[in-house]
């Protein structure tokens, strides 16, 4: 078993199983064919063909589109096609900095094959070979990946808040990190993937931040989404990632990126290039 196994676990999305959802001609999602066929029942909102789904041109403007699509999402939730209605809004656009076309409930993002953005915080103590990383175990009640290992703080990127503000908010809610401390977090790149798993299609861009924490800082969950925190020597982080799937798959990518950036993966490892390429797809 090796770190590259975590890269290979992230199976590339099979594009023969999906069709594009276009708004104003731009692709904003990759819909599974079965879901696309169900959208034929919402003819006032979507025009469905074998090749693609288009948002009706009669719907214009962010608000009008968001309201119309929300009605569809609630109906799909009632039908059981969308398991959770999360009451958290995600902006949907052709790219992160493009003007959002509409907003949608977080619970629909995966089932409808939309790209989601998130922030992940690598909270570490010490430097060099003495470095240790805070690892969180997700609460058993979390709607996705309950009980799995995760970063000290991480979260999806909702509408109407900047990346750094969201990071500071999540650091407080998930790990009790005061804003004055979280403000020292430094952006350190991103990991990206297009894959499919038990929760649907997962197209993600995760912005990673590094934060050196004082040795006497102890995280605590404010919102109950984490069941426990542990401070691990880096060798244990490497072993855990290489030998199993205890980490959520996307947090594993961000953690491996951290290991690479901080010199805990040797560049003469024959897997080094596959690992590096697999972190951004």
């Amino acid at each position, binding site marked *: 078993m090796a770190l590259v196994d975590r890269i290979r676990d992230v199976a590339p999305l099979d594009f023969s199983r999906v069709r594009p959802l276009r708004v104003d001609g731009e692709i904003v999602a990759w819909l599974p064919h079965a879901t696309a066929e169900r959208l034929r029942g919402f003819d006032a909102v979507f025009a469905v063909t074998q090749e693609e789904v288009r948002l009706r041109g009669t719907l214009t403007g962010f608000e009008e589109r968001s309201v119309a699509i929300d009605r569809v999402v609630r109906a799909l939730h009632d039908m059981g096609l969308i398991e959770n209605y999360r009451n958290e809004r995600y902006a949907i656009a052709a790219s992160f900095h493009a003007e959002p076309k509409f907003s949608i409930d977080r619970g629909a993002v995966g089932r409808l094959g939309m790209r989601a953005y998130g922030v992940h915080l690598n909270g570490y103590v010490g430097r060099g070979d003495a470095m240790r990383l805070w690892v969180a175990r997700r609460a058993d009640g979390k709607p996705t990946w309950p009980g799995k290992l995760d970063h000290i703080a991480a979260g999806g990127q909702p509408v109407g808040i900047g990346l750094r503000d969201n990071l500071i908010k999540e650091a407080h809610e998930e790990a009790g990190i005061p804003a004055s401390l979280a403000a020292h977090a430094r*952006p350190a790149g991103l990991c990206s993937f297009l894959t499919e798993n038990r929760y649907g299609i997962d197209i993600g*861009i995760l912005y990673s931040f590094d934060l050196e924490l004082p040795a006497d800082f102890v995280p605590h969950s404010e919102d109950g989404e984490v069941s426990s925190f542990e401070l691990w020597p880096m060798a244990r982080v490497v072993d855990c990632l290489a030998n199993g799937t205890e980490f959520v798959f996307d947090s594993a990518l961000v953690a491996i990126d951290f290991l690479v*950036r901080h010199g805990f993966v040797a*560049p*003469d490892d024959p897997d*080094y290039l596959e690992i590096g390429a697999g972190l951004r797809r």
Partner: protein
Amino acid sequence: MSLLDRIREFRPPDFSRLLPFRVAGETLGWVRPSFAGALRRFPETFRVADHEVALSSQLATPDARSEAVDRVLRTLHSDGIVPKIRGERFAVANRFGEPPRLVIDRAAVTLFGTRAFGIHVNGYVGEGDAMRLWIGRRARDKAVAPGKLDHLVAGGQPAGLGLTENLLKEAHEEAGIAEALARRARPTGYCSYLIETGEGVRNDVLFTYDLAVPATFVPRNTDGEIEDYRLLAIGEVMRLTADTQDFKFNVALVNIDFLVRHGFVTPDDPDYIEIVAGLRRG
């Protein structure tokens, strides 16, 4: 001008105009049709077809391949088709650390478009916004990129040397860095690209290292390849990388990777995703 301009200078080649260079069924590089034409004269070594250049399957061992290719290169050199032989041996393999499929002169690496590996050391002082980076100016008589700005330590990876050995050797020769300090360099990833240049195809992987040097440290070039060193504020490195072509082209790429990893480029930059994606290609 912006950092993204530097990234976009690494345009992928038009592969429909290049021929894959294949050895024992594996694609190891990309060859221009003009060079492929020159190789047609050596049918015992190269099988040149319309769609590929393959090394003869008669050449079954790395040694046999290396000797045969070397003979061809020397003939082409005396004919003036290969401008120079550098006398530095590069291992040919797609992944570093794999047994080399053959070994070729450094000057031929670009002609065959095979993957070349190198090391780049970001030598820095201080932290956060007070960080400064040691930058060298390449000697005016360097064969490649004379007078351009470069890292504290950088070098191609010759055959038969480990990465750390090469780093220690280059750190000593280029910057007079004592082994005890050079050993503190930490690997931080790599940058890669595949581009067409004047001579052929460059298919490079640059292993990057960060080295925090003491404020009292002053580099001292011992091999004449660096004209002088200066300690530049990180903001100045960012400005020179974004607004000028003063840095050697691939040094600019490694600079951008450093700026991203250390948080000097931030994700609210609309170019962020394209910049990060552009650091590893090929």
